[in-house]
């Protein structure tokens, strides 16, 4: 996905201006969560590869930038797709974004849970908020994806 919001990179600089009851225990933004066992794209998708199948979603950073997600619309299922194609869109209250396929293959399953509860993408982007499962047609493409550390550098987290 492409994040269209123009966000400041300096989001969590602390200062003493903050009223005390805001300082803890619930800051508005959590520390970015980036599981090490996933691979990432520059467009802010994650992919979990298991043999020749994979699960795909958007990163914690992406859901945070998008804000409240209203629905996920996957348009391309059960057809062979090339890496990088738009396989759907994600609508948030404020903006809409395309979803890009991290690797070539065929989408076999959509997450029915997020149709009824799109907020799962905000709450649990790497777990219950997954978007699609796919079979992979070119496993060598994974070398072009980003590790958690490389993705962390990309987003400056």
């Amino acid at each position, binding site marked *: 996905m492409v994040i269209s919001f123009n966000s400041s990179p300096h989001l969590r600089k602390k200062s003493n201006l903050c009223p005390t009851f805001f300082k803890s225990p619930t800051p*508005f933004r959590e520390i970015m969560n980036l599981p090490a066992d996933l691979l990432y794209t520059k467009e802010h998708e994650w992919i979990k590869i298991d043999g020749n199948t994979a699960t795909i979603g958007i990163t914690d950073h992406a859901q945070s930038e998008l804000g409240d997600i209203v629905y996920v619309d996957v348009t391309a299922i059960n057809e062979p797709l090339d890496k990088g194609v738009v396989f759907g869109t994600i609508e948030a209250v404020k903006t809409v974004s395309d979803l890009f396929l991290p690797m070539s293959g065929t989408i076999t399953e959509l997450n029915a849970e997020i149709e009824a509860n799109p907020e799962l993408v905000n709450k649990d982007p790497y777990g219950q908020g997954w978007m699609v499962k796919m079979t992979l047609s070119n496993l060598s493409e994974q070398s072009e994806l980003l590790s958690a550390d490389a993705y962390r550098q990309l987003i400056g987290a």
Partner: protein
Amino acid sequence: MKTTALTDVHIALGAKMTAFAGYNMPVSYSGINDEHHTVRNAAGVFDVSHMGEFILKGEGALDLIQRITTNDASKLTPGKAQYSCFTNEQGGIIDDLIVYCLPGNAWMLVVNASNIEKDWNHLVKYNSGNVEMHNISDKTSLLAVQGPKAKSILQKLTQVNLDEIPYYHFTKGVFAGRENVLLSNTGYTGSGGFEIYFENNHAVTIWNKLFEAGHSEGLKPCGLGARDTLRMEMCFCLYGNDIDDTTSPLEAGLGWITKFSKVFTGSSVLQKQKEEGVKKKLIAFEVEGKGIPRKGYDLCSEEGDLIGHVTSGTQSPTLGKPIGMGYVKAEYAKPDTKINLMVRDSSVEARIVKSPFYKQPS
């Protein structure tokens, strides 16, 4: 990028920040939906200090305002305010604004941040020389405290009886121990509340005292994201989206602030437009299918002919469905007309509705 007196506070609170009209502004803190519901049900504070404020003084000030705004400022007495527009010679909207009538032939005009320079130049162009003008935008802070609990929270911080300030009235007084705070019963959310204007050096104190006073009533900081969804549910126009230099107040449904009892820039063009009827109208619509309207999307008739375009749209947090505003050809503008919203490659059913989408519980 410009900052407000509270930018560091927003960043410290972990707000998501964005560039808006050249200012580094908070978009959201706890999330747009949460902030939206907070304003509808309790109260929220918006830092809208990016807005522009001009002071006009002198014998000729009223005459200048009358010549370049659409509403009739001669109806105002000190302590009253009105919503109005600056129009160009073609009857297009240069900006929408609030006109405050201050004591002693003085006025305050509150304009959109993105239009401060354009509006100032417009005023200068029409000022025949006898009106003293001050742009106090950079030294003035503005907080919108909005929601059903806003008044009771604000009342804890001032001796001024807020019950005695009706809608679109204001007074100056001591607030949170700070002098010369303008308390205005106005806002752009549809949930009531006040807008308070004061000098920048009071900003951090007033912000903190507001949250001390409002914490127990659920007061939360809110960003421009929720401000946008709240105003959209009320069908309040956003300059640059729903109104601009090419749209007239009559087309935008702002006939109620366009007074032909006086002459103003573009009034003869608008008078003619009124007599002949407008060709396009700003309408509100609900989407019945799946798709969220966004600025620029096409609107088509049931038969599939292009009839206009979307100017604002979102998923309404209160209604739980997609809503939008847009201009359509006048013959399609009646409530209950079925239209189609073009979302990327597909056509989604929508229906024109009476505005506003949200009605405040009485």
